[in-house]
């Protein structure tokens, strides 16, 4: 056999094998996890970064400029650290690696400069990228999910690299401060003119990044044909990655159809709100990562040309500027892809799958449904995506049933494009019907998985909760549902003549049909009720006592509170995982109230103090804290990130008073198994130096004048600083989601070591103390 033929055969076989394997990856997609070694950027202390930043300040600068730069380095060093530890900035993952490879191609000719730049992917749905002053470039998965080629990503990276190279972040900050102080050329300007001046300076930087970024891009082997599309993508970035008609059959099942009434005849045309997004794309400041993405899409209106007060020029203006610069330049020999196209497609798919999950976790349920719907168009059997849909429907149903839908839902009127249909459906569908739809979706999926012997535990809880709600709010008894399908078809009444045009008999007939139609949902469980497992589950949920426990009287509450205060709790817990304990130091007497450096040192000391007291109290404690990770603890960082997300979800649920089951039960189980405890604890400490009120000072002097013995108290009061400190502790059983123990102490005293020791030991002691 010809060796070439052999090679081709092997290659073809390889492709045939690899392709299905790749497809299989997405079938049961698992969200990206942190692993391997933690990058230096995460491990280095912010105070060290700040010290390093300060050394770069030019000694010949004016005093005020030096001060401004110092402030910048302080705020940015600690701000970036906060972003890095948000659990959304990825490392050692395929997307980050891919982005860095593109940067390698861009800066192939300047390897020394390339080493200064570190790129990370961010788990955020917003179409955004940001650069920090020390060379970190953060690229949101939202941006990657909308890009059409590798070259387009390269162009965005080139833009961000210029921001770093030209020190735009610090320059922008210094200039903004100058404008705010009204110094130099800004001295005579009015308030409005100052805002305009700030905006103009920012736009200048953006234009420079665009144009010089283009120069950098042109030096690479990437094709210039791709550039103009980047601006179009950014222009419509507030929309999902595709615009496909939402079919009602997507949420219909056997014996369960959706009325046309729940769907709009026509959706708001795309483009009416596109301009509003211009301002939020491509942010080169180091603000916190906004992970709710385009949740506020369409809430601001701005004419495309009116970028007067915006920090960025409008995308169309940017596009024109770039196009005029590249006109006449040939793309000959340049490529859309310098790496295999498949890699780009795979990375984009990863980003899109991640975003479905991000929407779910961020409680943007309608977006999660529509986004998954778009992806399911390509692969209708994808389990991961269908789980996202099932969980989104479940959460919406829960909020709907508790009459808190608007805590997580935006009016369909403010939406545009096909996704508007999902918002309309959620808003118009009655609670009972929605509950049934969510139940049927989850049940059918679970049945399918069960048939494949891959029953999902998350869905198990979701189904139980949906059945619980159904029996609590709508149908307490299973007998309410018909067990046989309807005999006659019910005509659709959606397009009937106006009410006033109908005769009396027509109206009576219409009402009868409407009643029958309402009864149709009673046929929804015809098939399910034939399943003994479903019946058993229904009966089990129906039998649960749904009357809330009788609330304690006021006196009982006071007594209970006092009892706890004096005696403390006896939880009998042996092991606890402490997640991200935080320490903040504040000085209210100073203009710069936040004491960043002191807070970081206090944080480091706190980690030691927690472990010391845990040992003394006999409680086994595992610490997952910032400034406490070792280089090779990437997996622990993953747990840290997950648990931070978990607690933020819990807070939102508590705020909204709607409690959901764990939406990632598998990970929860894994954590419990790994750490051998279901108890996870969040702690926060604050030490505040308080400003004494002038009136209290005057009063104390005044009273001492008339009664001199009071000087004994007045003098210490006047000349000693006043402090307050707080300690918060929340202990959760992550298996049940129950808040097992809470402690909030506010003390009018300094956050001394002994005070901390006393409180921390007491907290651990209460957790560990055996039950009687």
């Amino acid at each position, binding site marked *: 056999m010809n060796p070439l033929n052999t090679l081709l055969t092997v290659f073809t076989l390889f492709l045939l094998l690899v392709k299905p394997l790749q497809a299989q990856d997405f079938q049961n997609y698992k969200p990206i996890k942190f692993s391997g070694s933690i990058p230096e950027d995460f491990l280095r202390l912010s105070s060290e970064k700040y010290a390093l930043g300060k050394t770069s300040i030019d000694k010949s600068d004016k005093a005020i400029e030096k001060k401004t730069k110092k402030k910048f380095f302080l705020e940015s060093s600690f701000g970036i650290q906060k972003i890095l530890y948000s659990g959304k900035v990825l490392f050692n993952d395929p997307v980050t690696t891919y982005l860095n490879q593109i940067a390698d191609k861009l800066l192939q000719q300047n390897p020394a400069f390339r080493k200064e730049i570190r790129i990370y992917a961010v788990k955020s749905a917003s179409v955004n990228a940001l650069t920090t002053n020390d060379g970190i470039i953060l690229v949101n998965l939202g941006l990657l999910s909308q890009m059409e080629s590798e070259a387009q990503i390269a162009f965005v990276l080139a833009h961000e690299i210029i921001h770093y190279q030209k020190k735009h972040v610090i320059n922008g900050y210094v200039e903004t401060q100058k404008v705010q102080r009204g110094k130099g050329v800004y001295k005579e300007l009015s308030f409005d003119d100052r805002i305009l001046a700030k905006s103009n300076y920012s736009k200048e930087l953006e234009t420079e990044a665009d144009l010089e970024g283009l120069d950098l891009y042109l030096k690479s082997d990437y094709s210039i044909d791709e550039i103009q599309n980047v601006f179009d993508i950014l222009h419509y970035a507030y929309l999902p990655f595709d615009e496909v008609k939402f079919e009602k059959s997507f949420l219909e099942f056997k014996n369960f159809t959706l009325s046309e009434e729940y769907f709009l005849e026509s959706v708001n045309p795309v483009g009416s709100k596109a301009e509003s997004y211009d301002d939020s794309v491509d942010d080169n400041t180091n603000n916190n990562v906004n992970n709710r993405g385009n949740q506020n899409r369409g809430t601001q209106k701005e004419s495309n040309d009116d970028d007067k007060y915006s920090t960025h020029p409008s995308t169309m203006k940017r596009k024109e500027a770039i196009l005029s610069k590249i006109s006449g330049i040939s793309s000959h020999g340049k490529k859309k892809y310098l790496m295999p196209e498949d890699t780009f497609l795979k990375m984009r798919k990863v980003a899109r799958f991640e975003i479905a999950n991000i929407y779910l976790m961020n409680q943007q349920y309608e977006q999660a449904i529509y986004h998954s719907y778009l992806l399911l168009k390509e692969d209708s059997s994808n389990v991961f995506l269908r789980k996202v849909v099932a969980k989104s429907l479940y959460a919406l149903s829960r909020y709907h049933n508790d009459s808190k839908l608007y805590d997580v839902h935006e009016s369909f009127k403010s939406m545009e494009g096909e996704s508007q249909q999902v918002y309309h459906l959620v808003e118009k569908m009655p609670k009972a019907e929605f509950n049934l739809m969510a139940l049927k979706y989850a049940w059918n999926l679970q049945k399918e998985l069960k048939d494949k012997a891959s029953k999902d535990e998350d869905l198990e809880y979701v189904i139980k909760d949906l059945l619980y709600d159904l029996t609590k709010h709508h149908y307490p008894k299973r007998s309410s549902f018909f067990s046989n399908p309807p005999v006659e078809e019910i005509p659709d009444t959606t397009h009937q003549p106006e009410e006033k045009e109908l005769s009396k008999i027509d109206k009576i007939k219409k009402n009868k049909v409407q009643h029958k139609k309402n009864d149709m949902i009673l046929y929804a469980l015809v098939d399910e009720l034939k399943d003994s497992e479903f019946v058993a589950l229904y009966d089990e949920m129906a039998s649960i006592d749904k009357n809330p426990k009788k609330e304690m009287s006021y006196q009982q509450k006071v007594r209970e509170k006092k009892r706890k205060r004096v005696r403390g709790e006896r939880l009998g817990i042996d092991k606890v995982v402490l997640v991200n304990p935080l320490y903040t130091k504040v000085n209210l007497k100073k203009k710069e109230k936040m004491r960043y450096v002191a807070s970081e040192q206090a944080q480091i000391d706190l980690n030691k103090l927690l472990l010391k007291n845990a040992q003394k109290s006999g409680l086994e404690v595992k610490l997952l804290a910032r400034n406490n990770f070792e280089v090779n603890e990437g997996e622990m960082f993953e747990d840290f990130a997950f648990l931070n997300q978990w607690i933020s979800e819990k807070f939102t649920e508590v705020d909204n008073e709607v409690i959901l089951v764990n939406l990632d039960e598998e990970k929860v189980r894994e954590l419990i198994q790994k750490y051998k405890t279901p108890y996870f604890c969040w702690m926060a400490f604050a030490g505040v130096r308080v400003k004494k009120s002038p009136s209290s000072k005057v009063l104390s002097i005044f009273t001492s004048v008339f009664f001199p013995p009071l000087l004994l108290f007045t003098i210490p009061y006047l000349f000693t600083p006043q402090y307050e400190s707080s300690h918060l502790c929340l202990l959760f059983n992550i298996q049940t989601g129950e808040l097992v123990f809470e402690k909030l102490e506010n*003390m*009018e005293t300094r956050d001394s070591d002994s*005070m901390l020791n*006393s*409180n921390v030991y007491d907290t651990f002691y209460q957790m560990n103390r055996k039950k009687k």
Partner: protein
Amino acid sequence: MKKIIIFHILFFLCLYASAQSGYQGKKFIVQYSSLIGFRASNPSFSQSSENMGINYTHSLEIDYTISRKHTIGLAFSNFRTSVADEFETTNTSKRLPSALKLTAYGAEFNVKFTNKNPGFIAPMGMYQKIGVGIWLGQLTDDSGTLKMDSIPVKQFTDFALSYGLGKRKVYFDRLVLDMGVHFSLTSSYNKQSTESYEGGLIRTEGGESYTTNDSIEDFAGKRLFNHIWITFKVGVGLLL
């Protein structure tokens, strides 16, 4: 004796019943305290009443934390002072020939409530104290005239109720600093000793002896009250 036994049984029962946290598990405090009283007219042990006097009471305290907010304690106190070297009646001013010395020993059982501020966990932090105690006073004349081989001229007992406000701080997880203000009310605080005194405690014609009678005890009781009724406390102790 019976009362003392009962008291000890109760005290140790409290210790046994408690299974509370304390400061990092340390529940015992052994502490020395100095209770300082600034007096405008009363004399100290060595100074006459013309000057501003500082009265000291020394105290050894043993505290035990029984709950997150409660500490029980025993305090053994002692002070020496002069009773008075000047007194006034309604129309005359008389002077003792030389200072009459008072030595007092006190024992107090107290409970400290660390409830002033919710964040403090006993034994640390701000507290209010309520105590009951007994004082044993010994009056001696150190002029030598009636010394009688150090046998006290007069002994008396007094009961006291005390209330205090204070703050305890811990350093190096062991060292305790305790500061506060304490008030005591003794059973003889309102005795009109100066009036009773007029008839008895005067230099005799020969100028060589005193008359001791009940009025001296009353007078000394009032002095005891004056010594301890308001004091500022500074204590240093060890957490065990």
